[in-house]
């Protein structure tokens, strides 16, 4: 969270994705993680999204896709537009397989 404020959105994204995998299953921590993730994703400028997506590995892309779809479920003021940009870039790298894995995942975010 502090990294986000300090302006290094890319590092914040990696940190958020890393901590997501260590989460306990309780709904509260999941809510909190989703909120943090959304703030991190919104903090990026449109031109930086592609570079951020390219810095992720396969598992990172799958996890990012899960959060993008989770973000779609609860739209706020501006979130859907930004998420759609993330979705387009993540789709270019992860392909339809990444979306299929969001749909079939047993462990949701």
């Amino acid at each position: 969270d502090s990294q986000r404020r300090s302006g290094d959105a890319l590092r914040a994204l990696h940190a958020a994705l890393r901590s997501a995998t260590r989460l306990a299953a309780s709904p509260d921590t999941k809510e909190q993680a989703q909120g943090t993730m959304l703030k991190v994703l919104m903090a990026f400028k449109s031109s930086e999204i592609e570079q951020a997506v390219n810095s992720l590995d396969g598992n990172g892309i799958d996890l990012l896709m899960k959060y993008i779809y989770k973000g779609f479920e609860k739209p706020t003021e501006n979130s859907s537009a930004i998420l759609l940009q993330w979705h387009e870039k993540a789709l270019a790298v992860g392909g339809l397989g990444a979306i299929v894995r969001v749909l079939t995942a047993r462990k949701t975010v």
Partner: protein
Amino acid sequence: MAYHSFLLEPISCHAWNKDRTQIALCPNNHEVHIYRKDGARWSKVHELKEHNGQVTGIDWAPESNRLVTCGTDRNAYVWTLKGNVWKPTLVILRINRAARCVKWSPKENKFAVGSGSRLISICYFEQENDWWVCKHIKKPIRSTVLSLDWHPNNVLLAAGSCDFKCRIFSAYIKEVEERPSPTPWGSKMPFGELMFESSSSCGWVHSICFSASGARVAWVSHDSTLCLADANKKMAVASLCTETLPLLAVTFITENSLVAAGHDCYPMLFTYEEGQGSLTFGGKLDVPKQSSQRGLTARERFQNLDKKASSDTSNATLDTVHKNSISQISVLAGGKANCSQFCTTGMDGGMSIWDVKSLESALKDLKIK
């Protein structure tokens, strides 16, 4: 490659005879049709009508020339050719849900049927009673068995099921065979013994295949992944998350290379690196025809904008050979060790024969190990 459109409906399943002159397929109904190749044409020579439900699996035993079919009517029939007529023999599977897949064992003295009853029926012929008898493998299968493949030793059977797991069982029947010698998958193989169970998938296992030596087993599942377990590496599982839609069928074409196809309507090559224990995508195997690139007139551009809200020139039709999902792949020539030809059938009612040599020369980056 050669593409032949048999029907407008999906081909549910198919099987080839030994010399690849005849193909038995189910045209999405209760029957099995056998077509024979007459030069460049295919002509229907037999219609097998016995099932009361859709035929979900066909297998043709190459040496004994017998067909086994199974269907949603919870039955399986073994067909023998008497003169010019195929005569069915009913096999009581003792299942209360549809049968989904059937495979002859390599020695053709038994066959396995996977069903929605969450069990596998291993059927063998009992000489004294002149009757096919079946034994069940139940534990620990928790859902429908979608696909089966036999190990070359005639005893081990790999099963992929809807409970997201791939398992290898022993289907040793003491009445018809000798005790098997130890394999990399284990040495004690009583009937029904679970030799291996995978853990990684999140999707239904659509198709499963042993390699030619039997030391490796590969499966594809509905979460768009391809996995391979190597018995020589203590059953380590290598998996690859693909960027495509889920795959529905997979087969080995050499000991290290696999061809898989599915909802994306084209077959693709995958390679297994034994040293690293990793799977990689080797390339798309469909050679699209070079469509003539004509420029769009202003009128067409406006029409596109009006209809589709975009001035994109990409057309809405698939440029792959199959126009709908590919549901089954079978090896035609060369076996799973050195396949030179394989065949795909799909939900577009078409059957396509692919030649590995010409694919290798057509697609320059293709490396088949």
